[in-house]
Structure formats: structure tokens, C-alpha cells
């Protein structure tokens, strides 16, 4: 019996239509937009100004504190603007715009394809490189990686978990990366493991619907004593930090506690690859892999993109635009990420960012919500909730504005995985209301 997390969860169709598409390099965009909010934490501070010439890999923005990350030029050329631009959700953020000229890289970056296997660097150096190269978590939250690797008093890490579950339907970028660059991923993971401590054990969790990835990673881990691959039953949201720790270690993260309180640190396989490139090759986080997908089988790609490429350019390369540059008419929604937790794109001119993992194209039939019906108290939302919350109750309390009770019913345990709304036969906007209530509560708390 394969392992899985113990509470709730759903089994959506995994729809991994693009899984056999090898990773392809996207053409270098004519212009990139580098927003300063590509990570969780304080926005970065630009260190270039209009007219500056930059090379690929050159730092263009400094971190604004510890929980922040620098940004590097993903193309070479001239900075044409440092101004407010709407990001993919329409929020205006300080953005560095670079007009591409050629493809000139910093000399310090090793651009050869050769895998640099031996680790010659000490952990302190690794940590410094991860910080300087702007590595952030590529599993979705984009939390600066060096912060997660910083020891916390009294919470010694025992396990480094590498998240290869890719439980979001449709997305296949992590899967392709594991198949094509498993060795590099493991070197990156090993580098992080050494930062945490030599006695830390490494576990790679991969869902069973990716047998090739399991096979590939198993073969590689054979040479690494401290690493093992654990196949997981396919179940959403297995890739959630708390769920993955539960699945692999049978330990549960308490409300408001950090995952490290259970002795485990979770890093995404994409992050491990970025760490490998940063430390072994001297390459900052200027590119990543994303899937362009949807149930329309003609648009299925896995691309290596330069950070800051306009979404429009990627869709064009994937053949999702018509000759006038408009989105093919049967698509009504573009999601940055997967169908469960991704965010709808408001503006196609906006760029993809460091942590973009997919562009999902949805048709009206797939994504349009039915009118909500009456709650029949079937409790399916409660059964699906991986945090054992009562979504129907939180929804009613949120509607009634009974905020104190929301707190009492652990609304902040909600990981916004979407299982409740996905499951609800009456299509009641459970998560929408819970999310609104959470935000309102947070604002209140900050005021106090």
C-alpha cells in the first residue's frame, strides 16, 4: 500500500495531457517585464535605472530584507523603464522592463550542458549562493528558499522532503524536470540537505501516476545513501506541505505552527533544480519550466521560459493565439497554475514570474460555474477537507459576519486547496466566502 495523507482529499481526473512533451526552450522574448513581487515577503528594490545595459544573470534588484529575494536580468539588453505595470492579476507593481539585445551572459555562469556532479562547496557557501541567486520556492508560494533553510532555535530538521507529487491536475513541469534532469534535482536537493545538517534524511515523494519519474528518481537515489523515493497514492492536495509531511512521516503540523515544528522541511523538485543551477553553475533564477495545457489537445507544451516573458508570447508560441494575436475563441480563461489553486489571468500582457508552473487554458464548459443551489447538508465538503474543517459552517459564519466564531472553528487552518468547492454538489461558493472572511479577519487583526 502506497502512502498518502490521512484526512480528506479528492480524486480529480489528473488530465496530464502534456506529460510526453519534452521540455523545449522558448524563443528569447523581445522584451521582459520583471516585477518586484515575485516572492512572498518584502518587494525587491531595483538597482538599475532607465538606460542601463544589463547582461543575462546580472542582478537588477536587491532584496528588501531577510524575507525577500533579489531579481536578475533574464535577457541581455537595455533597461527601458522602471515603472508600475499591472501584473497578471491586474495589481500594479514596480517592474523593470528590459528590451532584449542579443543574448549575452555573465561570464561567471557555466552554460555548458554537462552535469556538475561533485559537490566541492561548503554548506555556508551554498546558503550564500541560494540567497544571492534569488532562489524562491517553485512549488507555488514562492517563499524565499534561504529563509526555509535558516535554522530555527529548538527545531532541528530531521527530514528534507523533496516534493515531486505535482498533485495539481494538468501540470507536468515537475514531472518533465524529474525525467529529464533527475540527476541535477538530486544534486540540488543534496546541497540543501547539507545546509540543513549531515544527519538529515532526504525523502522524495512522488505520486503513483508518474511511474517514469519514480523510476528515474529511484535509479539516481541508488547512489545517494541518505535519499530515498517514496511513491504516494494519487490524491489531491498531496503536494500541500502539511499533507505531504503527513503522508510521508505521519506527522501533523499544528495550527499556526511551521512545518519545521514536525522536524521536516519541504522543497519542491523545481526549487532543487534551481539550487543546482545556482550553486553548481552560478546561474541565478532567471528561467523555469512551465506547462501550457488544457483539455484542448492541440495546445500541450512544456517550456523553459525566461522569467518576465509576457504571457501573450508564450501562448503565441504554443499556438493558442489566432493570427490577430487573440486567444483562440473557445478558451475563456487562462489560469496561472493548475485548476485547483492557480489564479486566473486578468491581463495577457503581464509576464510569467519565477514561480510560474503552468498556463492552463480552459473552455467555458469546463470552468463556468453553475448557479449555486441549496445546501443539502451532505457533508461532502467536510469529508473532502484535508484540514478537517467544516466548510459549510465556515461559509455560513462568514456570510453572517460572525468572525469570532470563525477563528474558533480554525478558519486559519484553511489551506485554500479548493476541495470543498470542487466537491460541493450544490456548487455553493464555500471557498470564496471563506477566503474573503480570512482576509477580513487578517485585516482586523493587523489593526489591533
Amino acid at each position: 500500500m502506497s502512502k498518502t495523507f490521512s484526512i480528506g482529499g479528492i480524486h480529480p481526473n489528473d488530465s496530464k495531457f502534456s506529460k510526453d512533451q519534452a521540455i523545449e526552450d522558448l524563443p528569447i522574448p523581445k522584451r521582459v517585464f520583471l516585477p518586484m513581487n515575485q516572492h512572498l515577503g518584502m518587494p525587491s528594490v531595483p538597482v538599475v535605472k532607465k538606460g542601463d545595459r544589463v547582461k543575462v544573470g546580472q542582478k537588477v534588484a536587491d532584496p528588501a530584507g531577510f524575507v525577500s529575494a533579489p531579481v536578475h536580468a533574464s535577457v541581455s539588453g537595455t533597461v527601458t523603464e522602471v515603472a508600475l505595470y499591472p501584473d497578471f492579476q491586474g495589481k500594479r507593481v514596480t517592474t523593470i522592463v528590459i528590451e532584449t539585445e542579443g543574448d549575452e551572459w555573465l561570464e561567471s555562469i557555466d552554460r555548458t550542458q554537462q552535469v556538475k556532479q561533485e559537490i566541492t562547496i561548503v554548506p555556508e557557501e551554498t546558503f550564500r549562493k541560494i540567497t544571492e541567486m534569488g532562489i524562491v520556492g517553485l512549488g507555488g508560494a514562492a517563499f524565499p528558499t534561504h529563509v526555509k533553510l535558516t535554522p530555527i532555535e529548538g527545531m532541528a530538521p530531521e527530514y528534507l522532503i523533496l516534493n515531486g507529487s505535482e498533485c495539481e491536475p494538468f501540470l507536468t513541469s515537475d514531472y518533465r524536470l524529474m525525467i529529464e534532469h533527475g540527476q541535477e534535482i538530486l544534486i540540488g536537493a543534496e546541497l540543501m540537505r547539507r545546509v540543513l545538517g549531515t544527519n538529515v534524511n532526504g525523502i522524495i515523494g512522488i505520486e503513483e501516476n508518474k511511474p517514469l519519474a519514480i523510476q528515474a528518481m529511484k535509479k539516481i537515489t541508488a547512489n545517494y545513501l541518505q535519499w530515498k523515493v517514496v511513491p504516494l497514492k494519487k490524491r489531491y492536495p498531496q503536494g500541500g506541505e502539511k499533507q505531504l509531511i503527513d503522508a510521508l512521516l505521519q506527522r501533523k503540523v499544528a495550527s499556526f505552527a511551521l512545518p519545521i515544528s514536525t522536524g521536516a522541511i519541504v522543497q519542491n523538485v523545481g526549487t532543487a533544480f534551481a539550487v543546482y543551477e545556482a550553486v553548481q553553475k552560478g546561474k541565478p533564477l532567471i528561467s523555469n519550466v512551465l506547462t501550457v495545457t488544457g483539455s484542448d489537445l492541440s495546445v500541450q507544451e512544456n517550456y523553459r521560459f525566461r522569467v518576465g516573458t509576457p504571457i501573450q508570447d508564450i501562448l503565441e508560441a504554443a499556438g493558442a493565439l489566432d493570427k490577430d494575436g487573440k486567444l483562440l475563441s473557445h478558451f475563456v480563461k487562462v489560469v496561472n497554475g493548475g485548476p485547483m489553486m492557480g489564479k486566473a489571468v486578468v491581463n495577457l500582457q503581464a509576464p510569467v514570474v519565477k514561480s510560474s508552473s503552468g498556463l492552463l487554458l480552459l473552455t467555458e464548459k469546463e470552468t463556468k460555474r453553475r448557479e449555486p443551489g441549496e445546501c443539502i447538508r451532505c457533508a461532502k465538503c467536510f469529508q473532502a477537507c484535508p484540514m478537517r474543517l467544516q466548510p459549510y459552517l465556515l461559509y455560513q459564519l462568514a456570510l453572517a459576519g460572525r468572525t469570532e466564531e470563525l477563528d474558533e472553528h480554525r478558519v486559519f487552518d484553511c489551506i485554500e486547496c479548493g476541495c470543498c468547492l470542487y466537491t460541493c454538489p450544490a456548487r455553493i461558493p464555500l471557498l470564496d466566502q471563506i477566503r474573503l472572511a480570512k482576509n477580513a479577519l487578517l485585516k482586523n487583526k493587523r489593526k489591533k
Partner: protein
Amino acid sequence: MNKLLVSPAPHWYGKETTQGIMRDVIIALVPAVLVSLYLAGVSALLVLMVSVAGCVLVEHLIVRYMMKKKTTVHDLSAVVTGLILALNLPVSSPWWMVLIGCVVAIGVAKMTFGGLGHNLFNPALVARVFLLISFPVQMTNWAVANGIFTPENPLIPGFLLGLQGQLPDALTGATPLGIVKEGLANGVSIKALAAQHNFSYSGMFFGHMSGSLGEASALALLLGFIYLLVRKVIRPIVPLSIVITVALFSGLLHLADPIQYADPLFHLLSGGLLLGAIFMATDYVTSPMSPLGMIIFGVGIGIITMLIRVWGAYPEGVSFAILFMNALVPLINKIKPFPYQKEVKRG
């Protein structure tokens, strides 16, 4: 520029719908319906039809003309209520009584509370108990089920005219529970009663038990139960809690005095226990939402059922038991589920 649809995650949804769930319940009731048709033919069909049509019509009229909203009958919940109500009635129920049942079930028990999802009590059960108290003669004149299909079926006059004592004696009989209750009161032993009235467990299981339409065959009900489980419409917690509680309760009594108290199998197979446990106590709207709540609910139903069957005035108590526990559901739902993780635990 394209106009993009922008909405919060998730961006796709499961296929389950309220209507689909109701359709599954209807499918699960098919075996029981077929058994009733096989045993009582046209008269069963008439009761079923009037009940379903009546429930749907009452809901449509109320929503459309009293609440002035778009009709809700397409969610099929009224069909389910109609079917379950019919299965709770004797084959010989007169048409007007069935219709009154529909008005009580949908009009009083469901719509006055605000319709689907808002009712406190199971609508079909409210109607059944209402009819049982209002028309005790019609509600307890059980036709002996013996598979009559002929047009001269004397049950049809019963349906059209109402029972006025014109049914031949051979066609009416008391339910096993009624026989046992009365027999025991008169000091006859269980064994003697069973021999005298010729009821066997296999008969009760496969469908030769007299009683309401849906009570005839335990097998048919169990088939429906399996279907509901396979389709994940219901969880087995409530039915199992009821059955186990009844088995334990009656088992202890039977052990203490086998002459005075029937054995557990008799209690499980007789009356409306399985029909109630599988199809009425599991009604989403009127049952608890957490597993612990479901256990409390089921155990409560089991205990009250046995109290009524053994010491109460009525031979059967499932309906009352479920209705009583329905009333406690809002309280039971107040029990908080175990938190995901209370405090930090290190292994």
C-alpha cells in the same frame, strides 16, 4: 484584447450534482419498488404513482404560486420523498390518504421550513406518522403479500374507495412485529407464534413479509444500500450504528429471556428497520454531518426503536425513533470535529 473570464480558484469542479445524488437514491430504491410491484401488482403501482406525482405536484405548486420562485422539482428530491412515502404505506392505502401524505410531507414538513436543505424532520416520515395517527385503521390493515396481478385484485377497490372492511380476511394480516407484540401480551411464546403464523426468516429476507410496500424484502433494501455505498452517496455509519445497536439491545434481552423476547435477527428483518436505517436515517438534510455525530444519531435511533418495540404501545418504533433523533441533529452538529492537530508532536 480578449475578454477573459476571471474568477477565484478552483477553476474546475467535480461532476456531482444534487440532482445526480437524488437520482442515485431513486435507483437504489428500484429493487424495493420492484419487489412491491411483484408482490402487490397494480395496487402497489397506484400507491407509488399517486405518492410520487402528489409530492412533485405539491412542491411545484407551492414554489411556483406561493413562494413565487422558479420551480425546484427538477432536483428530484420530491420524487425521492414520494417514493419513500409510498414505501412506508400499506398496499391498500386509499388514494386520498396517499395524497394527504404528500401534502403533509412536502407542504408541511419540507416547504414550510424553506424547502430542500432546510427541513428539520424527514418529510416522508412526518407524513407517515401523521397518517398513522390520523388513520390508524387504514395504516395498519396490512394486506398479506402473495403476488396478485389479476385485474380482480381486491386491493384496487381498497385503493379507490378506502378500506371499509370489504377486504377478504385472507388478504389482511398483521405484521410479524404486531403478531409478536400481541401474542406475547397474551402469554404465547415466540416459537409458538412463529409456527402458528408461518413466518420464516428466509421469507422476511426475500420478501413475503406483510407490512408497508417497502418493508417486504430485506434483500431488496440491502441491494439499494450496496448501490448507495458504491456510488458514495451515503456513508455506512448511520445504518450500521442503528443495526448494531438494535442487535445488541435485542440480543441482550433475548439472552436474558428467550421466551419473552425475540432474537436479534427477527428485530433486524422485521418492520421498517432496514428501510428506515438505509433510506430515511441517512437523509442528508436531517442527519448529522460528522462521523461521531452519525454514530450518536444511529445509536439513539436503535435504542429508541427497541424501547418502543419492546415496551411501547406501538408494535413498531423506527419512524418515531428517527423523527426524535432528527430533532436532536442541530445539537449533535454542534460537536466540533477533532482538530487537525492540537499541539506540536514530534515522533
